[in-house]
């Protein structure tokens, strides 16, 4: 049952060291503010799950919070590789990182299975793909009607899912619009879900088939305007591509990275996100 609360309280209440956390968002609506709060609270030994780990995962990994990463594409979208992730995988800095790697189709189906309360997902996948040899969580199911051999992966069930959304109402019903990714599935699959939103409104004023998470599927709603920056919020502000480009330089060096994290995350507060998007606002 959703409660409106400050982000720091939500993170401290629901995410425990050693837990499994998913921060979802497919380029759009990436929960940056929530990840920064986790970094500030230094909640470690996490298993991080995400289809497209990008900047915030590079940041959490670089700060040593992750012991394992479950993912399907780890890159800075349109820019290049993730340098902190590479440093962890290639050099074990600041700590070794265990990885469980899938394809997008597998992860999307695994979230869907989690939302659907199933123990595993079944799909036509990994045909001739070598990941099936290095990941013991890729198995098979034989169709009892045709004999076709299909791929199977375990359902994803995070302890806590974090997402960012455009709006919530007073009860805590949450509206997501635009590129909706796997956020709904990630929330429904999780034990607990924390949603940061651009704004709280009296009436969501949504299309009958809009993507809405009823308030009883969400545990905490935290109002953090700009909380997706440098990702974007459809109808609110545009993607800050310059920041994505800049990250490549910041993350290239361990010291530059630590200095940036201190200035922009450790010594900052959720309130800074509103300022960061002030110049990026779009006309609704």
């Amino acid at each position, binding site marked *: 049952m959703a409660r409106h609360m400050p982000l720091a309280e939500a993170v401290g209440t629901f995410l425990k060291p050693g837990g499994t956390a998913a921060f979802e968002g*497919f*380029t*759009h609506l990436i929960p940056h503010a929530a990840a920064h709060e986790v970094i500030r609270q230094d909640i470690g030994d996490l298993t991080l799950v995400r*289809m*497209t780990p990008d900047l915030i995962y590079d940041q959490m990994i670089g700060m040593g919070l992750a012991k394992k990463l479950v*993912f*399907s*594409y*780890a*890159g800075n*979208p*349109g*820019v290049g*590789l*993730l340098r902190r*992730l*590479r440093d962890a*995988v*290639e050099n074990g800095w600041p700590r070794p990182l265990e990885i469980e*790697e899938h*394809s*997008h*189709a597998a992860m*999307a*189906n695994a*979230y*869907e299975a989690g939302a659907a309360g199933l123990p595993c997902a079944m*799909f*036509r*996948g*990994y*045909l*001739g*793909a*070598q*990941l099936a040899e*290095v990941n013991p969580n890729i198995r098979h199911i034989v169709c009892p009607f045709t004999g*076709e*051999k299909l791929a199977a992966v375990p359902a994803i069930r995070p302890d806590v899912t974090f997402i960012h959304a455009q709006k919530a109402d007073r009860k805590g019903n949450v509206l997501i619009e*635009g*590129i*909706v*990714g*796997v956020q*709904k*599935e990630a929330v429904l699959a999780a034990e607990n879900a924390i949603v940061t939103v651009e704004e709280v409104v009296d009436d969501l004023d949504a299309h009958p088939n809009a*993507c809405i998470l009823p308030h009883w599927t969400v545990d905490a709603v935290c109002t953090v305007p700009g909380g997706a920056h440098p990702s*974007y919020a*459809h109808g609110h502000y*545009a*993607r*800050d*591509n*310059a920041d*994505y*480009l800049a990250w490549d330089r910041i993350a290239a060096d361990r010291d530059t990275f630590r200095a940036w994290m201190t200035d922009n995350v450790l010594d900052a507060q959720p309130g800074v996100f509103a300022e960061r998007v002030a110049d*990026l606002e779009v006309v609704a």
Partner: protein
Amino acid sequence: MTDFTADEMMTIAAARALSNDDVCFVGIGAPSAACNVARLTHAPDITLIYESGTIGTAPDVLPLSIGDGELCDTAVTTVPVPEMFRYWLQGGWITVGFLGAAQLDRFGNINTTVVGDYAHPKVRLPGGGGAPEIAASSREVFITMKQSRRGFVEKIDFFTSFGHGEGGDHRQRLGMTTKGPTLLITDLGVWKPDPESKEFTVTSLHPGVTRAQMQETVGWTVRFSAEVEETEPPGTEELAVLRDLKERTARAHQGEAA
């Protein structure tokens, strides 16, 4: 005829391979530029799909990521990502999956996972993303990338996405009913798989490119088709459209950066 770069030739040659009736699953980077040039020239009704869930998108500038806002704003509809992979890709609607690669072998097998050993990689690449299933479920696959000895290798370090495997009927033996890679467009020429062996053979050289250049940039012994054509150079309109698109894109992404 205007001057043009090898990069422009690659994008335009790739664009030409697409038709108005295609439903194209677009990889980011080179494929995205080619698909949008096709849309802005001879294939205005082509359906472009990005794995972020945007179907029938028509961006005015090239997206930096596969999920830029512009893709959703101009799409016929935007669906959840699980639906994208289940209904639209696995469901068999994609006529062309358009992919790039970090490493490629002569049979169109793709590596975007690691350089070196998987457990102890020299370079940890981003991984497969949508590609393993795009390669298997699209009715056919086009690949576009620049030729280099680092990229065009005798043996890829990791089979991220299956092309023709060891060649011949390897796909069918794995139960695949789709065609796999049928076209490879590079900065130097156009390659198509041999009907029997499925090894990519050069069918067309871009204007001014020699057979020696083709071989120098490839880590295996290049086979040339019996009749190798010269790629038609970029037309004035093709070039204008591509350059306008690139300029609008640069301005838009810089504008945001300002």
